[in-house]
């Protein structure tokens, strides 16, 4: 005992000797600042700075030596491909997100319906698409869609359905890209909704059942209102991710046929990196900002609201 007391006493003396620097380091706010410093530096140099740098780049000419103001944007607005990309990005993101949300909701319900001890197994199987790196699974889809040895066309031929140009025709290519995106993203919704479904109190359903509500009314008046928050946040989050998607479109169609599946990210890559017109590529990618900002504001409002509730 005495020994310990002596030691701590000595330590205290030593600390006093080392003076004010050490005392400052011991202060809570200094300590907290030092602990968050790497995070702040990372965000400042690799996220915030490049974001503003993109704005600067977008105002330069192709060789990046001359300030050209907004003429990059003017150039884009006059190009037909740009409007095609805008249209396709919106169709892609909105269709994919709606289908992912609806499919996820349905699957979550079915998983929730079955006895609890089997749920784990099914959930595990259904989440596999989300776990495989999208670049790898898209390769498998590309091979399933292959024009000459396509496994899908082989199967469909038994039903008398002619060979479908999965990635060759503009409409079919758009369909394929969206299908793969739904395949990758629906499990995420399923998991989120399943977690939310489990948190809806059983008594509410019992009360509804006593009041004579059928299954549709139970979903409409009990499940959906209880899950409103999680549905909103998941959908907005998925909208951001889908809108900014790159891997799937790049590997499946690379924007083809004739730019008919390009979305903002893949077109920016084509122009900025492959075409080495960095300023124009930066201007294209900047068009993702407005929709991201709107979605982010809504998500943030929701997160803060729930933070206050709890």
């Amino acid at each position, binding site marked *: 005992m005495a020994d310990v007391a002596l030691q701590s006493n000595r330590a205290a003396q030593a600390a006093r000797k080392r003076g004010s620097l050490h005392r400052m380091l011991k202060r*809570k*706010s200094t*300590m*907290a*600042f030092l*602990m*968050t410093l*790497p995070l702040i530096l*990372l*965000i400042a140099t*690799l*996220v915030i700075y*490049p974001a503003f*740098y*993109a704005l600067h*780049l977008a105002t330069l000419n192709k060789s990046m030596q001359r300030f050209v103001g907004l003429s990059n944007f003017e150039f884009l607005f006059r190009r037909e491909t740009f409007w095609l990309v805008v249209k396709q990005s919106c169709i892609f993101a909105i269709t994919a997100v709606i289908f992912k949300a609806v499919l996820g909701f*349905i*699957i979550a*319900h*079915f998983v929730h319906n*079955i006895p609890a001890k089997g749920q784990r197994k*099914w959930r595990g*199987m*259904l*989440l*596999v698409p989300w*776990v*495989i*790196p*999208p*670049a*790898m*699974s898209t*390769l498998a889809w590309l*091979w*399933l869609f*292959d024009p000459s*040895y396509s*496994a899908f066309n*082989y199967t469909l031929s038994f039903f008398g359905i002619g060979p479908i140009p999965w990635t060759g025709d503009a409409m079919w290519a758009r369909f394929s890209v969206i299908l793969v995106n739904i*395949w990758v993203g629906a499990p995420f919704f399923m998991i*989120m909704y399943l*977690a939310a479904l489990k948190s809806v109190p059983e008594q509410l359903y019992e009360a509804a059942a006593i009041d004579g509500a059928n299954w549709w009314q139970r979903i409409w008046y009990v499940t959906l209102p209880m899950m409103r928050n*999680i549905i909103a946040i998941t959908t907005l989050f998925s909208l*951001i991710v889908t809108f*900014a998607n*790159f*891997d799937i479109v*790049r590997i499946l169609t690379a924007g083809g046929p004739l730019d008919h599946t390009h979305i*903002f*990210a893949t077109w*920016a890559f084509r122009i*900025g*990196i492959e075409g080495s017109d*960095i300023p124009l590529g930066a201007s294209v*990618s*900047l068009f993702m900002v407005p929709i991201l900002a709107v979605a*982010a504001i809504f*998500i943030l409002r929701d*997160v803060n609201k729930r933070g206050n509730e709890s």
Partner: protein
Amino acid sequence: MATVTIDKAAPTRKVKYGSMSRDRTWALRWSYFFLVIFAIFSLTPPIYMLITSLKSSAEISAATNPWWVFHPTLENYLGLLTSNQFLRFFWNSAIVSIFVVTITMLISVPAAFALARMRFWGSAVLATGVFLTYLIPETLLFIPLFKMFAVIGDWTGIQLINRWYVLLILYPTLTVPFCTWIMIGYFASIPKELDEAAIIDGASWIQTLTRIFIPVAFPGIIAATIFAFTVSWAQFLYPLVFTTSTDQLVMPVGIITTLIKGDVFNWGQIMTGALLGAAPPLIIYAFLMDYYIAGLTAGATKG
């Protein structure tokens, strides 16, 4: 089950109970029916990868039934696992992922602790900022980052583009915000009494973190680690933009750029490569599914 309900129910209510349990049986049957369909939809691509990876290229081009392997062979696996190039991709991916996970945890755990427990000037704003950066997709930043690193290379002579280690700088921008965010959630759920007791007993902030918070929030740390690993293993855009020489590539980009030669697709090898590339996340998922799902849902529900 049925007999029990009949025994307990009064005779007049028998019919109603019967119809209700029949409804339930049918609901269950429909659930299983649709779940089987969805499971087939989910598992078709990975299973097809496996089927194709076991075929020789002769069998693939013979256009026999694509859903069946008539002459299973491991030549694709042997071919890839003995190719130095492929092993190099695997090695690069592994090194990058391990380093990124370490860097991520070293940055995000202390930061999350400070943001969750040590209220200081601007901490609330910073926490929101972390969440916002998590929402910024990499497709928005790759062009300015590419130019930034090119300029740094010109100015200082430190060549970062086309080196695998540039990914160590880039990937944390994707992993750190999310990991910090979920760790804030996990740390915030630890009762205040615990760290107050530690502080009263004379523990420093660092000791409180390492002796109390990290052990108590260990499930959260595992979830964050899994997330950081899967994100860095699966990332495709940054390596595609920043690395080009074959000895600097990571798995996803390596498979796509080297196995696809012009218009010639060696599908057997591509599918084998894709399967091997998908294997590490799948194995982790198979063993740590609950942590994986906890991390996934924590991002949106813990906020």
